[in-house]
């Protein structure tokens, strides 16, 4: 499927609030009930990329942040359109190590939805997330203390097929 599936996902997210997540449901009740696991400090680092056709300046506003599973965290990226015409971008993300991705829950961010920046406009882009407390119970995650979150922006154009994994 092409990136045209993304607006459908957006509608789905907003109407059902489920976000099409697989595995355990990440409901508000779960967030309200979860307890932070203070013994497991995880360093989350941030990466930002743009596809070569997108003329945005896009970067994280912090290179790293220390979190614990079960506690919500906020981080920021910044994007600027240095050109003299409006540009619409759309992003996807990646989590490394990929096995940790299933525990990395984004409550809200800026991905999978078209974002329009006017000429010379610069905006903050927040990511609000948490690491699922079940992370500490997974033996494969026992040695994981570094998770890298990487966002990539593409230019959103009519009819263009974007390599968004999971939608193909």
């Amino acid at each position: 499927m092409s990136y045209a599936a993304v607006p459908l996902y957006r509608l789905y997210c907003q109407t059902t609030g489920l976000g099409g997540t697989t595995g355990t449901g990440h409901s508000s009740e779960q967030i309200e009930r979860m307890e932070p696991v203070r013994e497991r400090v995880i360093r989350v680092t941030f990466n930002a990329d743009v596809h070569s056709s997108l003329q945005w300046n896009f970067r994280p506003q912090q290179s790293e942040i220390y979190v614990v599973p079960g506690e919500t965290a906020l981080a920021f990226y910044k994007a600027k359109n240095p050109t003299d015409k409006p540009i619409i971008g759309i992003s996807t993300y990646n989590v490394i190590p990929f096995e940790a991705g299933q525990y990395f829950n984004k409550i809200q961010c800026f991905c999978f939805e078209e974002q329009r920046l006017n000429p010379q406009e610069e905006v903050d882009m927040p990511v609000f997330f948490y690491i699922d407390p079940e992370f500490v119970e997974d033996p494969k995650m026992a040695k994981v203390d570094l998770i890298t979150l990487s966002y990539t922006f593409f230019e959103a154009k009519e009819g263009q097929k974007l390599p968004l994994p999971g939608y193909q």
Partner: protein
Amino acid sequence: MSTAMNFSAKSFKPRPPDKGAFPLDHFGECSAFKERFMECLRDSGYESGACRQRAMAYLQCRMDRQLMANEPLEKLGFKDLVDEKPEGKPEELDFSAKVDFPKISRLLKIHKNILPRRKQLLPEVFFMSLHQCEWCR
């Protein structure tokens, strides 16, 4: 990129965020809250847990300005901060309050620790009490 294939042939499947995307803050309405949060992060060595109060304030700013769907803060993982009583909790000095303590402190050459830790202080009461302080003159 996630299109790279590794030998186990598994690939990362990104999931959309639970509550969708944040609308862009085109007018920077919550930039001040973001700056305060980032300042806290820098000061704390990028420890997320130390800056949850300011993170909460940022999200509240967004909700107040229709830049985020309204949600009780407990459901965003801030239950412990919301449950704390406003009084009785040691507060940092709020320099955005009406009385500018550092400026007065500098003007009167009084060490700031001696100034009362109260949110509101009527300026005239402050100066009256100062008048009675013998060593302040």
